[in-house]
């Protein structure tokens, strides 16, 4: 595992996995258009873990949907090169008519992966998220945290090397969330995965990210970036995480207050 050997990852890894340049997105047309993103630029290096934080209305989710190609870009460019992009939502969004293993396989079925390879890979991924014994269960038999781990396995089954995560642990209780932080970090360290992680929880961002990017609200722009030079694994309750989280929160407050005037 990379991070066990080195306290932090290299500051400037060679290749960019995601390059966002001058991207704008406006919702609605006519009388009351809402500018969600305004000429936003951001680079994410291959293998980097970047957390996006911002108050509501900063267009965090919009940005992920643009990168995933679900929404159309109004202006600017997003380049992800030859990388495959996977997206994970706040809700597990599992298919209730399939078993846990079939849900993971669904990601491969649409890409035309043959059946035995699908089976084997799904079993592998379920072991990775420690849900191997639940392969034949139905989603409704699992807790929210377990469902979210299946969703993570399903996102990884897309063979994505860029994983976009839209507040994936936002609806979970604190204990489960902390454990899933450890789990996600372990999976990320063991793979060449690039992660762009959206959250409104500043401590979570500092706990996980190599870098925390603060977005402004309406319109969304990059206001500040905070490199997180803390050794991994980190504790969310730990002093270093709290200190940096306080700095980020102050910047976020100033950004929110701007809207109160």
């Amino acid at each position, binding site marked *: 595992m990379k991070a066990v050997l080195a306290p932090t990852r290299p500051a400037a890894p060679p290749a960019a996995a995601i390059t966002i340049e001058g991207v704008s997105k406006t919702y609605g047309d006519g009388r009351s258009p809402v500018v969600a993103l305004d000429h936003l630029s951001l680079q994410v290096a291959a293998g980097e873990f970047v957390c996006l934080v911002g108050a509501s209305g900063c267009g965090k989710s919009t940005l992920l949907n643009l990168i995933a190609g679900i929404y159309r870009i109004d202006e600017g460019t997003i380049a992800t090169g030859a990388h495959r992009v996977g997206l994970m939502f706040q809700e597990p969004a599992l*298919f*209730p*008519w399939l078993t846990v293993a079939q849900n993971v396989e669904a990601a491969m079925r649409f890409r035309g992966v043959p059946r035995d390879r699908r089976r084997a890979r799904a079993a592998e991924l379920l072991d990775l998220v420690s849900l191997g014994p639940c392969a034949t269960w*139905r989603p409704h038999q699992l807790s929210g945290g*377990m469902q979210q781990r299946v969703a993570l396995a399903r996102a990884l089954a897309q063979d994505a090397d860029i994983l976009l995560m839209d507040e994936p642990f936002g609806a979970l209780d604190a204990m489960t969330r902390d454990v899933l932080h450890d789990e996600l970090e372990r999976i990320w360290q063991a793979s060449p995965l690039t992660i762009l992680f959206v959250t409104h929880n500043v401590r979570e961002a500092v706990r996980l990210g190599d870098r925390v990017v603060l977005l402004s609200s309406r319109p969304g722009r990059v206001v500040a970036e905070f490199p997180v030079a803390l050794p991994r694994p980190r*504790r969310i309750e730990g002093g270093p995480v709290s200190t940096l989280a306080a700095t980020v929160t102050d910047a976020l407050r100033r950004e929110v207050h701007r809207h109160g005037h």
Partner: protein
Amino acid sequence: MVTDRTLADDLRGLDALDTPRMEPARRGAAVWAAVWPKLLAVGLALAAWQAVVWSGWRPRYVLPGPGAVFSRLGSELTDPRFAKAVTVTMQRAVTGFALAAVLGSLLGLAVSQSRILRRGIGSLITGLQTMPSIAWFPFAILVFKLSEAAILFVIVVGAAPAIANGLIAGVDQIPPLLLRAGRVLGARGPAAWRHVVFPAALPGYVAGLKQGWAFAWRSLMAGELLVIIASRPSIGARLQFARELSDATGLMAMMIVVLVIGILIDGLVFGALERHIRRTRGLLAGR
């Protein structure tokens, strides 16, 4: 420092706490719990019927008691002419319902996918569904004469709109999040329909099929009373002959047959299908 070992232990502990405990189902007790209220209800209904007969409200040859009707039913069940009638009626029911299912599904598929079709004929389908099927018979007899085709036509007209509406409602009620998840996973075109849209719409579709069966059975009974073909004995025809001969006992025995067949198919085929879908998707309340 958090090691992998404690992480695995944490997960195991949380999972064990979170997992719903599944009680082993005691099958015999479950069946009995489902059956006794039904038996009680049937018993009460029979008792009320017998009480009305004993009150002398109508003479016995007009309103026979349950004893006479059920002993008549017993002798009917061993009558080869009765077996032939049931066979003809069930053939019509299955053929008519199958035709209605095919046409209704195609119609529902087209309307759920096209905004223009929906605007054009969406409300017309619901309108057709509210039209009593018996109102179609004069037209059907005019066009198809007294034939099998007239009966099949009315079954299809009666059942297909309900099936189409069920599929449309099922598609409309799919949570948008599931469709988004499908899109993110790369589901496009026919594959998306087969693996995401159709399974997600299945509960509504099965509800439509169930309602379609009820309409088909009603239309068929109305049809068999009106369209009587000499070479084709049917349950409806036996019902009609019993009325013409003022054979009240035979008439009521046939009515029980109509009721029982309707309930059996509704419960054993569509009800079981519905329960299976709800159980696998966790939509069944723990009752």
